[in-house]
């Protein structure tokens, strides 16, 4: 049954994606029905779980997602989750109804309701998450979707700035929360809420507790717009009013408060918690209430009053008595009800009057009596007028303030503060009622206000009715859910309390009456207050400061990006070299007084070695110095390649020498072919200082690597090759240990390597296919001698010989130097020579082999050879070898690894041919004139480039 939890969240998220399509196809009322239906479905799915939650049970659903990170799709339903789910889904339903009538006809509603549903889904995910990491994921989704909702009117600059600000503040808080949750998981050893809540004592004694607390509180305070992070909320009033009514009264800003309640058993009860939460709440409460009165904008007043009420809830959560937490939960319910209603009324007024300026909106009671009554009921609840729901939670607040003993001798501070906050909140509530609905005649309104059609008032009406119901019969209306939610938040049974209107004539009632009277006086003298505020209050508006910080951050980020990502290969290379050099140096210096010489007796150097070194240095330096003369540089490079091949021979590596030699030929041909297309003008030499710098870097790199090589070579070592050598014949069926390692012992590596080779060749093919370049003009002499006749004649006998030799090398590779790699390269060289001798088109026409298919054949053969062992129950790439009688030849020693080697051979041939023929094709004039159509799907993509 707990499976219903993720389904409920999923229903909303999926419907969020579907609603825009519905709106586009079937119109706006279908979109509204669809959104409303999705919310109803989500609620229905949760209904079967509600009775257990009300009884105090916890239902948990768990599905492993990324278990190694501790991230599971784990959901839970308990009293607290149930309460918030009711708020989210219930008020969501009313907001959809309200929005369908509020939004202008030309708005299709698809985008609004789609995003709203996605937001509601994420919000539901936050309150129903059992896994804390999952909760953070949903938390961030609410930040992003609320960003989209605030920026709904995205052609307005204000809306965009406001949305960005909300995202930066709440998203940043989300990051802090993530860090806090990670720390919690570290301390507890699990991200499961059940485990975390049970480990409260361990968490609070952990040395990281304070840091964790601050991080989690940052997340909660930014989301719930606590001072000094409150400034995004009033700006977020740029959103359409239905969004404000939903996000900024009932849901999004309540997420922070929810977090405090959720983690209450784990984090509360310490000095730090009390100080941080209570102080922040108190400052926010007073500041929000003070500013709310000064706002002339209707929604601005409501926004600051929301800030203030959130501060009140936070303050209550911070107090140490369990009963204050009950009061906080109660106020969460009440505030959601009356504030959503007030926002809806404000939206109607804005809609009818064309402005939200309370200095111009007056005396609406006569023209809009219904809206006026609804607004007055909700505002009364906000002020804490008896018989309305706000009165009850405010009474609880006053009671807590009177009875809290935390401050010892300063016990009078809290009641006085509470009364002061009460005065302020009564004052701004009176302003909302008196200024808008009475107070003379409207001043110069853009429109003539009149009572709107009935449906738009219905949601506000329902909410106002709820204010009355909760206010009159609280125990009946919310008794059960309040009790179970408080129990879930406290992690224990809440103390006994009575939800009744009349507690007798006591001190809290006196304070309440004093606050009401004081509020009226405060409101009467508001003129003086406005004047004083205008004259003395420093203009440190949050948004401006935020914008300054934000713009500074953008500039700093650009600068940092300019350094970290300079879009310069040269800089990247320098960073890389610098990093490698620093690491090497640290290792060298960190090893203590280590000697460079490792003590292995040196092998004597012969004169040939000195000669070779000289040639090597000559080639390398020549290549480096004369690189601007590209042909010469390639010649120098080939010198280096030859010396390297000789080095391999000298040190008993015939396989390597053969490979190096054939690769050398192919590489040089490749470079020479490409020379025809590289721009010909000699590049300007870099400035002298830069060359000096590069020279120092290059010299340092060479010196470092040289020293490292020397240190390595002079140290004794233990090779792990003994096993390979000992088992080559018996295990691999071959005497050439290098080849047996390649195609048998480590054949899986080799398979990967030929795949890399194929990928590189295919990448080059994709880059070059369809490319059109203008080659440098040939001199008349070379034009006439395009395919030298000598070479063409020579190739006729040479080609079959070379191919036969390659075949021989392939066959003997398992026992003597040779093998698939070398044979493939030799075949490639032979065919390339044929290309050069008679031209690409004739050769290709005769060869009749598609290079891409050759890749498929080669890789396929290698893989099939490997798979062949699997039906026998042996692992992938297990080899077999033995003596096979072959007619005419006699008994022959064969190994399955040789077939694998043939696969390698084919892949290497395909690589060489594909790359070189692609580059060669660039220069054929036929191709440039009329690109031959190719039915090859692999070449389909670059066709556009050609066009």
């Amino acid at each position: 049954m707990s499976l219903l939890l993720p389904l409920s969240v999923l229903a909303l998220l999926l419907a969020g994606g579907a609603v825009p399509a519905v709106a586009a196809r079937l119109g706006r009322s279908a979109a509204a029905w669809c959104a409303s239906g999705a919310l109803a479905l989500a609620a229905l799915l949760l209904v079967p779980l509600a009775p257990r939650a009300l009884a105090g049970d916890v239902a948990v659903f768990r599905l492993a997602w990324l278990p190694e990170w501790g991230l599971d799709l784990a959901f839970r339903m308990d009293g607290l989750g149930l309460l918030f789910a009711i708020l989210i889904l219930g008020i969501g339903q009313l907001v959809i109804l309200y929005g369908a009538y509020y939004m202008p006809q030309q708005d299709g509603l698809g985008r609004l309701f789609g995003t709203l549903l996605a937001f509601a889904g994420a919000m539901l995910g936050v309150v129903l998450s059992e896994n804390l990491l999952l909760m953070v994921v949903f938390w961030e989704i609410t930040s992003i979707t609320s960003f989209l909702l605030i920026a709904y009117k995205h052609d307005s600059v204000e809306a965009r700035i406001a949305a960005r600000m909300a995202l930066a503040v709440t998203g940043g808080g989300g990051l802090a929360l993530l860090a806090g949750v990670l720390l919690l998981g570290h301390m507890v050893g699990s991200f499961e809420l059940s485990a975390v809540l049970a480990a409260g004592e361990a968490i609070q004694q952990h040395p990281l507790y304070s840091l964790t607390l601050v991080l989690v509180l940052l997340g909660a305070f930014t989301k719930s717009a606590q001072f000094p992070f409150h400034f995004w909320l009033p700006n977020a009033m740029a959103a359409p009013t239905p969004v404000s009514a939903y996000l900024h009264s009932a849901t999004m800003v309540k997420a922070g408060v929810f977090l405090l309640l959720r983690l209450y058993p784990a984090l509360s009860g310490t000095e730090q918690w009390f100080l941080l939460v209570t102080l922040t709440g108190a400052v926010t409460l007073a500041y929000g209430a003070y500013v709310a009165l000064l706002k002339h904008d209707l929604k601005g007043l409501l926004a600051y009053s929301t800030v203030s009420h959130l501060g009140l809830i936070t303050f209550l959560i911070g107090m140490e008595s369990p009963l204050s937490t009950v009061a906080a939960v109660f106020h969460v319910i009440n505030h959601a009800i009356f504030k959503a209603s007030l926002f809806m009324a404000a939206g109607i007024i804005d809609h009818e009057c064309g402005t939200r300026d309370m200095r111009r909106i007056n005396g609406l009671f006569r023209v809009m009596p219904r809206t006026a009554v609804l607004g007055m009921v909700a505002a009364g609840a906000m002020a804490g007028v008896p018989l309305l729901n706000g009165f009850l939670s405010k009474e609880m607040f006053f009671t807590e303030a009177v009875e809290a003993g935390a401050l010892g001798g300063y016990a009078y501070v809290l009641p006085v503060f509470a009364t002061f906050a009460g005065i302020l909140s009564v004052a701004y509530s009176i302003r909302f009622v008196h200024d808008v609905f009475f107070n003379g005649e409207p001043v110069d309104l853009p429109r003539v206000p009149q009572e709107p059609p009935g449906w738009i008032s219905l949601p506000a009406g329902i909410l106002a009715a709820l204010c009355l119901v909760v206010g009159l019969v609280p125990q009946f209306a919310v008794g059960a859910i309040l009790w179970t939610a408080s129990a879930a938040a406290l992690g224990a049974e809440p103390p006994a309390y009575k939800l009744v209107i009349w507690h007798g004539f006591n001190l809290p009632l006196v304070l309440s009456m004093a606050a009401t009277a004081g509020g009226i006086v405060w409101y009467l003298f508001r003129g003086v207050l406005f004047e004083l505020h205008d004259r003395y209050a420093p203009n440190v508006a949050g948004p401006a400061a935020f914008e300054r910080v934000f713009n500074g951050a953008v500039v700093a980020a650009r600068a940092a990006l300019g350094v970290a990502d300079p879009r310069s290969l040269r800089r990247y290379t320098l960073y890389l070299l610098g990093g490698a050099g620093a690491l090497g140096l640290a290792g060298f210096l960190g090893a203590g007084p280590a000697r460079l010489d490792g003590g292995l007796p040196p092998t004597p150097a012969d004169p040939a070695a000195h000669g070779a070194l000289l040639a090597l240095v000559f080639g390398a330096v020549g290549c480096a110095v004369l690189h601007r003369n590209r042909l010469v540089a390639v010649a120098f490079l080939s010198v280096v390649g030859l010396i390297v091949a000789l080095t391999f021979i000298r040190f008993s590596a015939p396989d390597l020498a053969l490979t190096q030699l054939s690769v050398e030929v192919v590489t040089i041909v490749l470079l020479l072919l490409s020379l025809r297309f590289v721009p010909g003008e000699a590049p300007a030499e870099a400035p002298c200082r830069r060359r000096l710098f590069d020279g120092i870097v290059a010299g340092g790199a060479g010196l470092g690597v040289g020293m490292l090589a020397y240190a390595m070579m002079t140290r004794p070592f233990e090779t792990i090759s003994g096993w390979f050598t000992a088992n080559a014949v018996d295990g691999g069926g071959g005497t050439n240990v290098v080849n047996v390692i390649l195609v048998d012992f480590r054949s899986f590596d080799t398979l990967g390597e030929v795949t890399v080779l194929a990928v590189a060749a295919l990448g080059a093919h994709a880059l070059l296919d369809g490319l059109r370049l203008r080659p440098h003009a040939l001199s008349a002499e070379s034009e006439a001698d395009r395919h030298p006749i000598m070479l063409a004649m020579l190739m006729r006998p040479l080609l079959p010989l070379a191919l036969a030799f390659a075949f021989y090398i392939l066959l003997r590779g398992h026992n003597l130097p040779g093998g698939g790699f070398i044979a493939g390269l030799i075949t490639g060289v032979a065919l390339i020579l044929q290309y050069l001798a008679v031209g690409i088109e004739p050769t290709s026409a005769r060869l009749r082999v598609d290079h891409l298919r050759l890749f498929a054949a080669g890789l396929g053969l290698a893989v099939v050879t490997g798979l062949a062992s699997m039906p026998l129950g042996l692992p992938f790439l297990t080899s077999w070898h033995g003596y096979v009688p072959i007619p005419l030849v006699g008994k022959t020693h064969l190994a399955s690894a040789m077939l694998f080697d043939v696969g390698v051979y084919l892949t290497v041939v395909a690589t060489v041919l594909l790359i070189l023929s692609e580059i060669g094709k660039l220069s054929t004039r036929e191709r440039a004139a009329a690109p031959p159509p190719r039915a090859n799907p692999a070449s389909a993509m670059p066709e556009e480039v050609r066009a």
Partner: protein
Amino acid sequence: MELVMATGIGALVAAGVWLLLRERTFPVVLGLALLSYAANLFIFAGGRLSATSPPLVLGEVAAGATPADPLPQALVLTAIVISFGTTAYLVALSLRLVGESGTDEVDDRGDQA
């Protein structure tokens, strides 16, 4: 011999890095080729230089002969072939660059303003 080898590797690295820091594509290709030579020699030298016979198991090893270590050779063999593949890819990339933007300058200085 070790000193000779180390000097050779060092020279290759120095020349390779110098070329890598040039501003045109062609020297960068050359520089990477030199660096891959150096890297191959370095890994190969990991098997030390004292060997006197190739890593073949053909009957008895001649008296006094030290067979070479086959493992670095196997590593380097594929590395040589793959370095050809990457060089070819780089060449293709630089040719494409010429085709797309008409220049062979490595750094995108036009956009940085």
